[in-house]
């Protein structure tokens, strides 16, 4: 045999021997270090939406799936997937699902810029977080500042500033709660929507009636008429009516409560009614603007 053949042979043999030895070691190690993995984990993770929005208070869908399996976390905590996902997960886990309602945010302020009184021009950084540190921008220290921190954090284009107040688009909203965390005045709260439209209090001012009237044209004065109309459902705390949404039932006579309100703080919220949709149907859509891609727009905002 020539030298080159021998070298080739030995090289092949070396690699073969290494493969056998390493393979054996790794095979044994695989048995010794075996970690049992729950087969359901993958299936639960697959049935979750995978949006990783964090609304369930876990880092992502994977973490939540693990929490369901290991810690026995509730399967209804995913607001994005709603009842469909809960029942899918329940099927895998062998847990029956109680009726779950979608949780959606409610902005507890309805005053437009014009309706908020005692305003002072504000030229600082245009975020609510910064403006909230400065006093006297508007009379009401509880209400919406209208600078759109909540709009900026919404990944679903579901919250907009309309006439200077945050308005949620309940068709687009998935209830991830990003806006709730973003609001520095804490006037957005998560509420279970037991029907497409529910009644909610759209004011956060805890002052007495006279002071509220001085700073806002629509704010709640704490007159307690609504609580008298349905004392079971509504209690007045700090001059503000508070709904007990666990007792809320869409079949209740709720219109009475709204009719009793002398201000404009008791509002129906939720998906648009058929009448509203019919009204909007006649409106012409603005022409769609196609991007030209001619220039690059620098989004940086420079402020002195």
């Amino acid at each position, binding site marked *: 045999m020539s030298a080159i053949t021998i070298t080739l042979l030995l090289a092949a*043999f*070396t690699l073969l021997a290494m493969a056998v030895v390493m393979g054996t070691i790794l095979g044994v190690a695989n048995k010794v270090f075996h*970690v049992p993995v729950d087969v359901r984990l993958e299936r639960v993770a697959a049935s979750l939406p995978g949006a990783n929005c964090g609304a369930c208070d876990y880092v992502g869908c994977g973490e939540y799936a693990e929490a369901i399996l290991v810690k026995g976390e509730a399967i209804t905590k995913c607001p994005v997937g709603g009842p469909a996902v809960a029942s899918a997960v329940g099927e895998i886990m062998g847990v029956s699902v109680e009726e779950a309602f979608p949780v959606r945010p409610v902005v507890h302020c309805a005053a437009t810029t014009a309706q908020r009184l005692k305003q002072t021009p504000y030229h600082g950084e245009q975020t609510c977080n910064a403006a909230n540190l400065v006093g006297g921008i508007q009379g009401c220290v509880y209400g919406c500042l209208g600078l759109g921190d909540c709009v900026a954090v919404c990944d679903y284009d579901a919250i907009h500033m309309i006439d200077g107040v945050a308005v949620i688009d309940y068709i687009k909203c998935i209830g991830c709660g990003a806006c709730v965390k973003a609001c520095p005045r804490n006037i957005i709260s998560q509420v279970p929507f037991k029907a497409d439209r529910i009644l909610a209090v759209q004011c956060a001012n805890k002052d007495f009636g006279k002071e509220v009237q001085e700073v806002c044209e629509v704010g709640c004065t704490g007159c307690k008429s609504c609580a008298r109309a349905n004392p079971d459902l509504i209690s007045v705390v700090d001059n503000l009516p508070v709904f007990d949404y666990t007792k809320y039932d869409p079949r209740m006579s709720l219109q009475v409560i709204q009719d009793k309100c002398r201000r404009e703080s008791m509002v129906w919220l939720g998906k648009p009614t058929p009448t509203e949709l019919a009204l909007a149907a006649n409106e012409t859509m603005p022409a769609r603007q196609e991007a030209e891609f001619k220039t690059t727009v620098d989004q940086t905002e420079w402020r002195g």
Partner: protein
Amino acid sequence: MDYLAQLLLIGLGAGLIHNFVLYYFVGLCPFMGVSKKIDMALGMGLAVTFVIAIASTLSWGLTYYVLRPGAFLSSWALSLITGQAGEVDLTVLAYLVYIFSIASSVQFVEMYLRKYFPPLYKSFGIYLPLITTNCAILFACLEIMKNVVGVDTAAVWGLDKALVLSVGGGLGFTLAIVIMAGIREELELADTPKSMQGAPIAFIVAGILALAFMGFAGIDTSLGKLMLGGS
């Protein structure tokens, strides 16, 4: 005494003076990828050190007994086949064999961590299998090969020196990545220009760190003169 001094010089040289990351710029992938938090960086550094130690032991053994010309096992196999003594040079296989041993040891470490340190295993994520392709480890193996193949018989490195080099290099890598993570943790709070946020500023910081490590250059030669008496 000379022996200990030599070991010290090799270890110090690999860890500090000729730091794998900041002098030779190998192993940049985990250096950039896992240097966002100090505890994760420390875990990564120690995992790399562990893998480097296993892999270089394996590759030293393979180089010494199989690959180098006149190695014990290859000569024996040759005499078995041809019936006469001689030597075969199998160093062409070096890269293949090293990657093979590195990949196996990474697999081993991965299984071990998964069993006994699940949180560490989870925090590594994709970066643990990526140690396989960490050039710092292959670099250590090749450095060892340079001192085993093609040198005088008296100067051939034993396992002791190979291990000191690899562990020293691994600890140097740990040091570099932990320093980097510390800086990057502080950097999170800094008002970085938008165009510099994230990776760009990290690379600039790495460059400045490398400049700082240049200060160690030359220490080993003068230290060697001092300890080994000018040899």
